[in-house]
Protein backbone atom coordinates (compact mmCIF):
# COMPACT_ATOMS: atom_id res chain seq x y z
CA UNK A 1 0.00 0.00 0.00
CA UNK A 2 1.43 3.33 -1.06
CA UNK A 3 1.41 6.31 1.28
CA UNK A 4 -1.45 8.75 0.73
CA UNK A 5 0.62 11.56 -0.74
CA UNK A 6 1.85 9.27 -3.52
CA UNK A 7 -1.58 8.07 -4.60
CA UNK A 8 -2.87 9.32 -7.95
CA UNK A 9 -6.21 10.56 -6.62
CA UNK A 10 -4.59 12.56 -3.82
CA UNK A 11 -2.14 14.28 -6.17
CA UNK A 12 -4.92 15.04 -8.62
CA UNK A 13 -6.81 16.98 -5.97
CA UNK A 14 -3.99 18.26 -3.78
CA UNK A 15 -1.81 19.75 -6.52
CA UNK A 16 -4.39 22.17 -8.00
CA UNK A 17 -5.69 23.03 -4.53
CA UNK A 18 -2.16 23.93 -3.42
CA UNK A 19 -1.71 26.14 -6.48
CA UNK A 20 -5.05 27.82 -5.67
CA UNK A 21 -4.08 28.50 -2.07
CA UNK A 22 -0.74 30.01 -3.11
CA UNK A 23 -2.46 32.24 -5.71
CA UNK A 24 -5.04 33.46 -3.21
CA UNK A 25 -2.36 34.12 -0.61
CA UNK A 26 -0.22 36.12 -3.06
CA UNK A 27 -3.30 38.04 -4.20
CA UNK A 28 -4.42 38.82 -0.65
CA UNK A 29 -0.99 39.77 0.72
CA UNK A 30 0.13 41.62 -2.41
CA UNK A 31 -3.03 43.72 -2.65
CA UNK A 32 -2.89 44.46 1.10
CA UNK A 33 0.74 45.65 0.87
CA UNK A 34 0.00 47.76 -2.21
CA UNK A 35 -3.27 48.90 -0.59
CA UNK A 36 -5.27 48.59 -3.82
CA UNK A 37 -8.68 50.26 -3.25
CA UNK A 38 -11.55 47.79 -3.07
CA UNK A 39 -13.57 49.63 -5.79
CA UNK A 40 -10.74 48.96 -8.24
CA UNK A 41 -9.89 45.39 -7.48
CA UNK A 42 -11.06 43.54 -4.36
CA UNK A 43 -9.05 41.09 -2.27
CA UNK A 44 -10.26 37.50 -1.79
CA UNK A 45 -11.45 38.37 1.72
CA UNK A 46 -13.54 41.27 0.35
CA UNK A 47 -15.17 38.94 -2.16
CA UNK A 48 -15.87 36.35 0.52
CA UNK A 49 -17.39 38.99 2.79
CA UNK A 50 -19.61 40.20 -0.06
CA UNK A 51 -20.63 36.62 -0.81
CA UNK A 52 -21.84 36.26 2.78
CA UNK A 53 -23.41 39.70 2.94
CA UNK A 54 -25.32 39.44 -0.36
CA UNK A 55 -25.97 35.72 0.11
CA UNK A 56 -29.76 35.61 -0.31
CA UNK A 57 -29.96 37.85 -3.39
CA UNK A 58 -26.97 36.15 -5.04
CA UNK A 59 -28.43 32.74 -4.32
CA UNK A 60 -31.77 33.72 -5.86
CA UNK A 61 -29.93 35.04 -8.93
CA UNK A 62 -27.92 31.83 -9.10
CA UNK A 63 -31.09 29.75 -9.11
CA UNK A 64 -32.53 31.83 -11.96
CA UNK A 65 -29.38 31.43 -14.07
CA UNK A 66 -29.12 27.76 -13.18
CA UNK A 67 -32.71 27.16 -14.24
CA UNK A 68 -32.18 28.78 -17.64
CA UNK A 69 -28.92 26.87 -18.06
CA UNK A 70 -30.40 23.48 -17.22
CA UNK A 71 -33.53 24.04 -19.30
CA UNK A 72 -31.38 25.05 -22.26
CA UNK A 73 -29.02 22.13 -21.74
CA UNK A 74 -31.81 19.56 -21.60
CA UNK A 75 -33.49 21.11 -24.64
CA UNK A 76 -30.19 21.11 -26.54
CA UNK A 77 -29.51 17.47 -25.68
CA UNK A 78 -32.97 16.32 -26.78
CA UNK A 79 -33.09 18.45 -29.91
CA UNK A 80 -29.46 17.82 -30.84
CA UNK A 81 -29.81 14.07 -30.48
CA UNK A 82 -33.00 14.02 -32.55
CA UNK A 83 -31.36 16.09 -35.27
CA UNK A 84 -28.30 13.81 -35.24
CA UNK A 85 -30.53 10.75 -35.67
CA UNK A 86 -32.24 12.49 -38.56
CA UNK A 87 -28.87 13.27 -40.14
CA UNK A 88 -27.66 9.69 -40.06
CA UNK A 89 -30.91 8.35 -41.47
CA UNK A 90 -30.24 9.92 -44.81
CA UNK A 91 -27.27 11.56 -46.40
CA UNK A 92 -29.62 13.92 -48.27
CA UNK A 93 -31.04 15.35 -45.05
CA UNK A 94 -27.59 15.87 -43.59
CA UNK A 95 -26.17 17.46 -46.71
CA UNK A 96 -29.10 19.86 -47.03
CA UNK A 97 -29.41 20.80 -43.35
CA UNK A 98 -25.91 20.66 -41.89
CA UNK A 99 -24.82 24.04 -43.34
CA UNK A 100 -27.71 25.64 -41.45
CA UNK A 101 -26.59 24.03 -38.23
CA UNK A 102 -23.16 25.56 -38.86
CA UNK A 103 -24.80 28.89 -39.64
CA UNK A 104 -26.56 28.73 -36.30
CA UNK A 105 -23.31 27.91 -34.58
CA UNK A 106 -21.21 30.70 -36.05
CA UNK A 107 -23.79 33.44 -35.51
CA UNK A 108 -22.90 35.04 -32.15
CA UNK A 109 -25.69 34.66 -29.64
CA UNK A 110 -25.21 38.31 -28.64
CA UNK A 111 -26.22 39.28 -32.16
CA UNK A 112 -29.44 37.31 -32.31
CA UNK A 113 -30.44 37.59 -28.64
CA UNK A 114 -32.13 41.02 -29.03
CA UNK A 115 -34.25 39.65 -31.87
CA UNK A 116 -35.31 36.61 -29.87
CA UNK A 117 -36.03 38.75 -26.81
CA UNK A 118 -38.28 41.00 -28.91
CA UNK A 119 -40.05 38.08 -30.59
CA UNK A 120 -40.61 36.00 -27.46
CA UNK A 121 -42.63 37.74 -24.79
CA UNK A 122 -41.66 35.53 -21.86
CA UNK A 123 -38.15 36.58 -20.77
CA UNK A 124 -37.28 33.23 -19.19
CA UNK A 125 -38.28 31.46 -22.39
CA UNK A 126 -36.33 33.83 -24.62
CA UNK A 127 -33.22 33.38 -22.47
CA UNK A 128 -33.65 29.61 -22.62
CA UNK A 129 -33.96 29.74 -26.41
CA UNK A 130 -30.76 31.78 -26.74
CA UNK A 131 -28.82 29.42 -24.48
CA UNK A 132 -30.23 26.38 -26.31
CA UNK A 133 -29.02 27.75 -29.65
CA UNK A 134 -25.49 28.07 -28.23
CA UNK A 135 -25.48 24.62 -26.63
CA UNK A 136 -27.05 22.76 -29.55
CA UNK A 137 -24.20 22.44 -32.03
CA UNK A 138 -21.72 20.28 -30.10
CA UNK A 139 -24.47 17.76 -29.43
CA UNK A 140 -25.47 17.62 -33.10
CA UNK A 141 -21.96 17.37 -34.50
CA UNK A 142 -20.60 14.96 -31.89
CA UNK A 143 -23.60 12.64 -31.92
CA UNK A 144 -23.71 12.59 -35.72
CA UNK A 145 -20.01 11.79 -35.84
CA UNK A 146 -20.51 9.06 -33.24
CA UNK A 147 -23.44 7.47 -35.02
CA UNK A 148 -21.39 7.41 -38.21
CA UNK A 149 -18.18 6.09 -36.64
CA UNK A 150 -19.13 2.46 -36.79
CA UNK A 151 -16.38 -0.14 -36.60
CA UNK A 152 -16.24 -1.40 -40.22
CA UNK A 153 -15.67 -5.00 -39.14
CA UNK A 154 -18.70 -4.98 -36.87
CA UNK A 155 -20.78 -3.25 -39.53
CA UNK A 156 -19.78 -6.04 -41.90
CA UNK A 157 -20.80 -8.61 -39.32
CA UNK A 158 -24.21 -7.00 -38.87
CA UNK A 159 -24.73 -6.85 -42.63
CA UNK A 160 -23.71 -10.48 -43.11
CA UNK A 161 -26.21 -11.56 -40.49
CA UNK A 162 -28.88 -9.54 -42.25
CA UNK A 163 -29.50 -7.43 -39.15
CA UNK A 164 -32.45 -5.08 -39.52
CA UNK A 165 -31.93 -1.32 -39.68
CA UNK A 166 -33.45 -0.99 -36.23
CA UNK A 167 -31.22 -3.70 -34.68
CA UNK A 168 -28.17 -2.09 -36.28
CA UNK A 169 -29.14 1.26 -34.77
CA UNK A 170 -29.85 -0.05 -31.28
CA UNK A 171 -27.09 -2.66 -31.01
CA UNK A 172 -24.32 -1.02 -32.99
CA UNK A 173 -24.72 2.67 -33.80
CA UNK A 174 -26.06 3.95 -30.49
CA UNK A 175 -23.59 2.17 -28.17
CA UNK A 176 -20.75 3.14 -30.48
CA UNK A 177 -21.86 6.77 -30.45
CA UNK A 178 -21.94 7.08 -26.65
CA UNK A 179 -18.31 8.21 -26.12
CA UNK A 180 -18.81 10.95 -28.71
CA UNK A 181 -22.17 11.89 -27.23
CA UNK A 182 -20.66 12.29 -23.76
CA UNK A 183 -17.87 14.40 -25.23
CA UNK A 184 -20.60 16.61 -26.70
CA UNK A 185 -22.32 16.82 -23.32
CA UNK A 186 -19.18 18.19 -21.67
CA UNK A 187 -18.81 21.00 -24.18
CA UNK A 188 -22.52 21.68 -24.38
CA UNK A 189 -23.07 21.99 -20.62
CA UNK A 190 -20.50 24.78 -20.41
CA UNK A 191 -21.93 26.50 -23.48
CA UNK A 192 -25.46 26.40 -22.04
CA UNK A 193 -24.20 28.37 -19.04
CA UNK A 194 -22.33 30.84 -21.24
CA UNK A 195 -25.42 31.23 -23.42
CA UNK A 196 -27.65 31.84 -20.42
CA UNK A 197 -25.33 34.52 -18.99
CA UNK A 198 -24.72 36.27 -22.31
CA UNK A 199 -28.44 36.32 -23.18
CA UNK A 200 -29.21 37.79 -19.79
CA UNK A 201 -26.63 40.51 -20.32
CA UNK A 202 -28.39 41.43 -23.54
CA UNK A 203 -31.86 41.21 -22.03
CA UNK A 204 -30.72 43.13 -18.96
CA UNK A 205 -33.81 42.16 -17.05
CA UNK A 206 -34.00 43.40 -13.52
CA UNK A 207 -36.46 42.67 -10.78
CA UNK A 208 -37.28 39.35 -9.24
CA UNK A 209 -36.39 37.19 -12.22
CA UNK A 210 -32.85 38.54 -12.56
CA UNK A 211 -29.95 36.16 -12.77
CA UNK A 212 -26.23 36.38 -12.03
CA UNK A 213 -25.51 38.40 -15.16
CA UNK A 214 -27.82 41.12 -13.95
CA UNK A 215 -26.12 41.01 -10.55
CA UNK A 216 -22.82 41.71 -12.35
CA UNK A 217 -24.33 44.56 -14.40
CA UNK A 218 -25.97 46.04 -11.33
CA UNK A 219 -22.80 45.75 -9.25
CA UNK A 220 -20.94 47.55 -12.02
CA UNK A 221 -23.45 50.44 -11.99
CA UNK A 222 -23.13 50.83 -8.22
CA UNK A 223 -19.36 50.22 -8.20
CA UNK A 224 -19.88 47.33 -5.78
CA UNK A 225 -16.93 45.46 -7.24
CA UNK A 226 -16.72 42.71 -4.56
CA UNK A 227 -20.35 41.75 -5.38
CA UNK A 228 -19.39 41.62 -9.05
CA UNK A 229 -16.58 39.20 -8.22
CA UNK A 230 -18.86 37.20 -5.95
CA UNK A 231 -21.36 36.75 -8.82
CA UNK A 232 -18.53 35.86 -11.18
CA UNK A 233 -17.26 33.31 -8.66
CA UNK A 234 -20.71 31.69 -8.54
CA UNK A 235 -20.91 31.49 -12.34
CA UNK A 236 -17.48 29.85 -12.51
CA UNK A 237 -18.37 27.45 -9.72
CA UNK A 238 -21.57 26.47 -11.55
CA UNK A 239 -19.60 25.85 -14.73
CA UNK A 240 -17.07 23.69 -12.92
CA UNK A 241 -19.78 21.68 -11.17
CA UNK A 242 -21.65 21.12 -14.44
CA UNK A 243 -18.46 19.93 -16.10
CA UNK A 244 -17.65 17.64 -13.18
CA UNK A 245 -21.17 16.20 -13.32
CA UNK A 246 -20.74 15.43 -17.03
CA UNK A 247 -17.36 13.81 -16.41
CA UNK A 248 -18.90 11.65 -13.68
CA UNK A 249 -21.81 10.72 -15.93
CA UNK A 250 -19.58 9.63 -18.78
CA UNK A 251 -17.33 7.76 -16.37
CA UNK A 252 -20.32 5.92 -14.99
CA UNK A 253 -21.59 5.03 -18.45
CA UNK A 254 -18.32 4.12 -20.16
CA UNK A 255 -15.93 2.95 -17.47
CA UNK A 256 -16.60 -0.70 -18.27
CA UNK A 257 -15.39 -0.60 -21.79
CA UNK A 258 -14.17 2.64 -23.30
CA UNK A 259 -10.47 3.50 -23.36
CA UNK A 260 -11.09 7.13 -22.39
CA UNK A 261 -12.56 6.12 -19.04
CA UNK A 262 -10.73 2.93 -18.18
CA UNK A 263 -7.88 2.93 -15.74
CA UNK A 264 -4.65 1.42 -16.93
CA UNK A 265 -4.40 -2.16 -15.76
CA UNK A 266 -1.65 -4.69 -15.63
Amino acid at each position, binding site marked *: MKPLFESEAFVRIAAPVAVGIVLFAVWEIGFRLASVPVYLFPKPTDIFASLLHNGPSLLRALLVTLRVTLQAFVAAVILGTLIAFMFVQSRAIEVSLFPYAVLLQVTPVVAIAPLIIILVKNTQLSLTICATLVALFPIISNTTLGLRSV*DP*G*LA*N*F*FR*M*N*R*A*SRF*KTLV*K*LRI*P*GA*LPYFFGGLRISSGLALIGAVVAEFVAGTGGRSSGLAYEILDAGFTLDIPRMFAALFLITLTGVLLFAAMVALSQWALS*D*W*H*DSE*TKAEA
Partner: protein
Amino acid sequence: MRVLLPVEPLDQTAKQTTAAADGAPAVEVLSAEKVFANGARGLAPIDLSIADGEFLTLIGPSGCGKSTLLKLIANLIEPSDGRLLWWRGDFAQVGQEGRRLAFVFQEPTLMPWARVEANVRLPLEFGNMPRATAEPKVADAIARVGLSKFNRHFPRQLSGGMKMRVSIARALVTNPNLLLMDEPFGALDEFTRNKLDDDLVNLSWERKLTTVFVTHSIYEAVFLSTRIIVMAANPGRIFRVMTIDQPQPRDQGFRDSPKFAAYCRELSTWLAEASLQSVGGGGS
Protein backbone atom coordinates in the same frame (compact mmCIF):
# COMPACT_ATOMS: atom_id res chain seq x y z
CA MET B 1 -10.95 -58.53 -60.80
CA ARG B 2 -14.46 -59.89 -60.36
CA VAL B 3 -14.52 -58.33 -56.97
CA LEU B 4 -16.41 -55.51 -58.57
CA LEU B 5 -19.72 -57.35 -58.23
CA PRO B 6 -19.97 -57.50 -54.45
CA VAL B 7 -18.53 -54.03 -54.22
CA GLU B 8 -21.30 -52.52 -56.31
CA PRO B 9 -24.19 -52.85 -53.80
CA LEU B 10 -21.90 -51.83 -50.93
CA ASP B 11 -21.13 -48.63 -52.77
CA GLN B 12 -24.83 -48.03 -53.28
CA THR B 13 -25.62 -48.20 -49.57
CA ALA B 14 -22.70 -45.92 -48.88
CA LYS B 15 -24.14 -43.42 -51.32
CA GLN B 16 -27.55 -43.67 -49.71
CA THR B 17 -26.25 -42.96 -46.24
CA THR B 18 -24.24 -39.99 -47.39
CA ALA B 19 -27.25 -38.75 -49.32
CA ALA B 20 -29.28 -38.98 -46.13
CA ALA B 21 -26.62 -36.88 -44.41
CA ASP B 22 -26.95 -34.39 -47.24
CA GLY B 23 -24.02 -35.70 -49.24
CA ALA B 24 -24.28 -32.96 -51.84
CA PRO B 25 -21.35 -30.55 -51.93
CA ALA B 26 -21.75 -27.66 -49.52
CA VAL B 27 -20.45 -25.10 -51.98
CA GLU B 28 -19.81 -25.20 -55.70
CA VAL B 29 -17.86 -22.45 -57.41
CA LEU B 30 -18.74 -22.58 -61.10
CA SER B 31 -16.34 -20.63 -63.32
CA ALA B 32 -16.66 -17.69 -60.97
CA GLU B 33 -14.28 -14.84 -61.67
CA LYS B 34 -13.77 -11.45 -60.17
CA VAL B 35 -12.71 -8.31 -61.99
CA PHE B 36 -12.44 -5.29 -59.72
CA ALA B 37 -13.83 -1.86 -60.49
CA ASN B 38 -10.34 -0.62 -61.42
CA GLY B 39 -10.06 -3.34 -64.05
CA ALA B 40 -7.67 -5.51 -62.04
CA ARG B 41 -8.33 -9.21 -62.39
CA GLY B 42 -8.69 -10.49 -58.85
CA LEU B 43 -9.67 -14.00 -59.79
CA ALA B 44 -9.49 -15.90 -63.05
CA PRO B 45 -12.50 -18.20 -63.59
CA ILE B 46 -12.37 -20.77 -60.82
CA ASP B 47 -14.06 -24.14 -60.51
CA LEU B 48 -14.14 -25.67 -57.08
CA SER B 49 -16.43 -28.04 -55.28
CA ILE B 50 -16.32 -28.09 -51.50
CA ALA B 51 -17.57 -31.37 -50.07
CA ASP B 52 -19.76 -31.59 -47.03
CA GLY B 53 -17.65 -31.95 -43.87
CA GLU B 54 -14.44 -31.02 -45.61
CA PHE B 55 -11.78 -28.77 -44.05
CA LEU B 56 -10.51 -26.75 -46.99
CA THR B 57 -7.64 -24.30 -46.69
CA LEU B 58 -6.77 -21.58 -49.16
CA ILE B 59 -3.10 -20.59 -49.14
CA GLY B 60 -0.90 -18.60 -51.47
CA PRO B 61 1.21 -15.47 -51.94
CA SER B 62 -0.45 -12.12 -51.26
CA GLY B 63 -2.67 -10.94 -54.07
CA CYS B 64 -3.54 -14.49 -55.10
CA GLY B 65 -7.22 -13.88 -54.43
CA LYS B 66 -7.68 -16.28 -51.49
CA SER B 67 -9.59 -13.70 -49.49
CA THR B 68 -11.57 -12.74 -52.56
CA LEU B 69 -12.54 -16.36 -53.11
CA LEU B 70 -13.57 -16.64 -49.45
CA LYS B 71 -15.69 -13.50 -49.76
CA LEU B 72 -17.35 -14.95 -52.86
CA ILE B 73 -18.18 -18.08 -50.89
CA ALA B 74 -19.55 -15.88 -48.07
CA ASN B 75 -21.56 -13.93 -50.66
CA LEU B 76 -19.95 -10.76 -49.30
CA ILE B 77 -19.10 -9.91 -52.91
CA GLU B 78 -20.60 -11.14 -56.16
CA PRO B 79 -18.68 -12.77 -59.01
CA SER B 80 -18.18 -10.68 -62.14
CA ASP B 81 -18.95 -13.77 -64.14
CA GLY B 82 -19.87 -17.38 -63.42
CA ARG B 83 -21.78 -18.33 -60.30
CA LEU B 84 -21.79 -20.13 -56.98
CA LEU B 85 -24.16 -22.67 -55.49
CA TRP B 86 -24.71 -23.32 -51.82
CA TRP B 87 -26.14 -26.75 -51.08
CA ARG B 88 -27.16 -26.94 -54.72
CA GLY B 89 -29.18 -23.74 -54.47
CA ASP B 90 -28.77 -20.00 -54.55
CA PHE B 91 -27.81 -17.86 -51.57
CA ALA B 92 -31.39 -16.97 -50.69
CA GLN B 93 -31.93 -20.31 -48.93
CA VAL B 94 -28.73 -20.06 -46.88
CA GLY B 95 -29.63 -19.53 -43.24
CA GLN B 96 -32.26 -22.22 -43.07
CA GLU B 97 -31.78 -25.08 -40.64
CA GLY B 98 -28.91 -27.26 -41.84
CA ARG B 99 -27.74 -24.59 -44.25
CA ARG B 100 -26.28 -22.03 -41.93
CA LEU B 101 -23.14 -20.07 -42.63
CA ALA B 102 -20.87 -18.30 -40.19
CA PHE B 103 -17.87 -16.11 -40.83
CA VAL B 104 -14.88 -15.45 -38.57
CA PHE B 105 -12.87 -12.38 -39.49
CA GLN B 106 -9.18 -11.67 -39.23
CA GLU B 107 -9.96 -9.43 -36.24
CA PRO B 108 -12.20 -10.60 -33.39
CA THR B 109 -14.63 -7.70 -34.20
CA LEU B 110 -16.38 -7.85 -30.85
CA MET B 111 -18.61 -5.13 -29.47
CA PRO B 112 -16.37 -3.46 -26.86
CA TRP B 113 -19.39 -2.31 -24.83
CA ALA B 114 -20.87 -5.77 -24.46
CA ARG B 115 -19.84 -8.59 -22.14
CA VAL B 116 -18.63 -11.89 -23.60
CA GLU B 117 -22.07 -13.50 -23.24
CA ALA B 118 -23.82 -10.56 -24.92
CA ASN B 119 -21.31 -10.67 -27.78
CA VAL B 120 -21.91 -14.36 -28.31
CA ARG B 121 -25.69 -13.92 -28.06
CA LEU B 122 -25.74 -11.29 -30.82
CA PRO B 123 -26.36 -13.57 -33.85
CA LEU B 124 -29.31 -15.15 -32.03
CA GLU B 125 -30.77 -11.72 -31.34
CA PHE B 126 -30.71 -10.95 -35.04
CA GLY B 127 -33.17 -13.81 -35.40
CA ASN B 128 -35.21 -12.48 -32.45
CA MET B 129 -34.67 -15.64 -30.44
CA PRO B 130 -36.16 -15.29 -26.93
CA ARG B 131 -33.61 -14.88 -24.13
CA ALA B 132 -34.63 -18.10 -22.39
CA THR B 133 -34.05 -20.16 -25.55
CA ALA B 134 -30.82 -18.37 -26.38
CA GLU B 135 -29.23 -18.62 -22.94
CA PRO B 136 -28.30 -22.35 -22.97
CA LYS B 137 -26.98 -22.09 -26.53
CA VAL B 138 -24.82 -19.12 -25.56
CA ALA B 139 -23.51 -20.92 -22.47
CA ASP B 140 -22.75 -24.00 -24.57
CA ALA B 141 -20.89 -22.03 -27.25
CA ILE B 142 -18.82 -20.22 -24.62
CA ALA B 143 -18.06 -23.51 -22.87
CA ARG B 144 -16.89 -25.03 -26.16
CA VAL B 145 -14.18 -22.44 -26.52
CA GLY B 146 -13.28 -22.82 -22.83
CA LEU B 147 -14.29 -19.36 -21.65
CA SER B 148 -17.13 -20.18 -19.25
CA LYS B 149 -15.32 -18.40 -16.43
CA PHE B 150 -15.11 -15.23 -18.49
CA ASN B 151 -18.67 -14.84 -19.72
CA ARG B 152 -19.18 -11.68 -17.64
CA HIS B 153 -15.93 -10.07 -18.83
CA PHE B 154 -15.63 -7.24 -21.31
CA PRO B 155 -13.49 -7.79 -24.44
CA ARG B 156 -10.81 -5.35 -23.25
CA GLN B 157 -10.20 -7.58 -20.23
CA LEU B 158 -9.28 -10.51 -22.48
CA SER B 159 -6.09 -11.41 -24.30
CA GLY B 160 -5.92 -11.53 -28.09
CA GLY B 161 -6.34 -15.30 -28.15
CA MET B 162 -9.32 -15.16 -25.82
CA LYS B 163 -11.00 -12.50 -27.93
CA MET B 164 -10.57 -14.75 -30.95
CA ARG B 165 -12.19 -17.58 -28.98
CA VAL B 166 -15.15 -15.35 -28.24
CA SER B 167 -15.37 -14.58 -31.94
CA ILE B 168 -15.41 -18.31 -32.68
CA ALA B 169 -18.06 -18.92 -30.00
CA ARG B 170 -20.17 -16.23 -31.63
CA ALA B 171 -19.83 -18.06 -34.95
CA LEU B 172 -20.68 -21.44 -33.39
CA VAL B 173 -23.73 -20.25 -31.46
CA THR B 174 -25.99 -20.35 -34.53
CA ASN B 175 -24.98 -23.97 -35.05
CA PRO B 176 -23.53 -23.33 -38.53
CA ASN B 177 -22.90 -25.96 -41.17
CA LEU B 178 -20.41 -23.94 -43.13
CA LEU B 179 -17.70 -22.02 -41.29
CA LEU B 180 -15.62 -19.49 -43.20
CA MET B 181 -12.48 -18.14 -41.57
CA ASP B 182 -10.24 -15.42 -42.96
CA GLU B 183 -6.81 -15.72 -41.32
CA PRO B 184 -8.42 -15.82 -37.90
CA PHE B 185 -5.25 -16.52 -35.94
CA GLY B 186 -2.85 -14.45 -38.04
CA ALA B 187 -2.26 -11.87 -35.31
CA LEU B 188 -1.59 -14.38 -32.53
CA ASP B 189 1.67 -15.82 -31.28
CA GLU B 190 2.53 -19.33 -32.43
CA PHE B 191 1.80 -21.04 -29.12
CA THR B 192 -1.69 -19.56 -28.86
CA ARG B 193 -2.28 -20.26 -32.51
CA ASN B 194 -1.40 -23.95 -32.10
CA LYS B 195 -3.72 -24.20 -29.12
CA LEU B 196 -6.58 -22.65 -31.06
CA ASP B 197 -5.84 -24.87 -34.06
CA ASP B 198 -6.08 -27.95 -31.79
CA ASP B 199 -9.47 -26.78 -30.55
CA LEU B 200 -10.69 -25.84 -34.00
CA VAL B 201 -9.83 -29.19 -35.52
CA ASN B 202 -11.80 -30.91 -32.75
CA LEU B 203 -14.73 -28.55 -32.99
CA SER B 204 -15.12 -28.84 -36.72
CA TRP B 205 -14.84 -32.60 -36.43
CA GLU B 206 -17.40 -32.94 -33.62
CA ARG B 207 -19.86 -30.62 -35.30
CA LYS B 208 -19.24 -32.03 -38.79
CA LEU B 209 -18.57 -28.52 -39.97
CA THR B 210 -17.60 -27.73 -43.49
CA THR B 211 -14.79 -25.24 -43.05
CA VAL B 212 -13.06 -22.94 -45.51
CA PHE B 213 -9.96 -21.44 -43.96
CA VAL B 214 -7.56 -18.80 -45.25
CA THR B 215 -4.06 -18.72 -43.82
CA HIS B 216 -0.46 -17.76 -44.51
CA SER B 217 0.92 -20.49 -42.29
CA ILE B 218 2.08 -23.70 -43.90
CA TYR B 219 2.02 -25.59 -40.57
CA GLU B 220 -1.47 -24.43 -39.79
CA ALA B 221 -2.70 -25.42 -43.25
CA VAL B 222 -1.24 -28.93 -43.04
CA PHE B 223 -2.42 -29.48 -39.48
CA LEU B 224 -6.02 -28.44 -40.05
CA SER B 225 -6.93 -29.34 -43.58
CA THR B 226 -8.28 -32.30 -45.39
CA ARG B 227 -7.52 -30.44 -48.62
CA ILE B 228 -5.27 -27.47 -49.35
CA ILE B 229 -5.77 -25.22 -52.35
CA VAL B 230 -2.51 -23.50 -53.30
CA MET B 231 -3.25 -20.34 -55.23
CA ALA B 232 -1.11 -18.09 -57.42
CA ALA B 233 -1.53 -14.44 -58.31
CA ASN B 234 -1.73 -12.38 -61.51
CA PRO B 235 -4.44 -13.33 -62.01
CA GLY B 236 -5.66 -15.14 -58.88
CA ARG B 237 -6.06 -18.81 -59.72
CA ILE B 238 -5.80 -22.32 -58.32
CA PHE B 239 -2.20 -23.44 -58.73
CA ARG B 240 -2.23 -26.88 -57.16
CA VAL B 241 -4.30 -28.97 -54.78
CA MET B 242 -2.91 -31.06 -51.91
CA THR B 243 -4.91 -33.67 -50.03
CA ILE B 244 -3.78 -34.34 -46.47
CA ASP B 245 -4.27 -38.01 -45.82
CA GLN B 246 -4.54 -38.09 -42.04
CA PRO B 247 -7.69 -38.99 -40.12
CA GLN B 248 -9.48 -36.29 -38.10
CA PRO B 249 -9.42 -35.29 -35.31
CA ARG B 250 -5.72 -34.59 -35.11
CA ASP B 251 -3.47 -33.73 -32.21
CA GLN B 252 0.09 -32.79 -31.33
CA GLY B 253 1.16 -36.30 -32.35
CA PHE B 254 0.42 -35.44 -35.97
CA ARG B 255 2.45 -32.25 -35.71
CA ASP B 256 5.45 -34.21 -34.47
CA SER B 257 5.19 -36.93 -37.12
CA PRO B 258 7.57 -37.24 -40.11
CA LYS B 259 4.45 -37.32 -42.29
CA PHE B 260 3.56 -33.81 -41.13
CA ALA B 261 7.09 -32.60 -41.89
CA ALA B 262 6.93 -34.17 -45.34
CA TYR B 263 3.63 -32.45 -46.13
CA CYS B 264 5.01 -29.12 -44.91
CA ARG B 265 8.11 -29.49 -47.05
CA GLU B 266 6.11 -30.26 -50.14
CA LEU B 267 3.65 -27.46 -49.52
CA SER B 268 6.53 -25.07 -48.97
CA THR B 269 8.02 -26.00 -52.35
CA TRP B 270 4.66 -25.55 -54.03
CA LEU B 271 4.22 -22.15 -52.44
CA ALA B 272 7.64 -21.05 -53.67
CA GLU B 273 6.67 -22.17 -57.17
CA ALA B 274 3.33 -20.38 -56.85
CA SER B 275 5.16 -17.21 -55.88
CA LEU B 276 7.41 -17.47 -58.92
CA GLN B 277 4.37 -17.98 -61.12
CA SER B 278 2.74 -14.96 -59.56
CA VAL B 279 5.26 -12.34 -60.60
CA GLY B 280 4.47 -10.06 -63.54
CA GLY B 281 2.31 -10.94 -66.49
CA GLY B 282 -0.77 -9.68 -64.74
CA GLY B 283 -2.39 -6.30 -64.56
CA SER B 284 -3.25 -5.38 -68.14
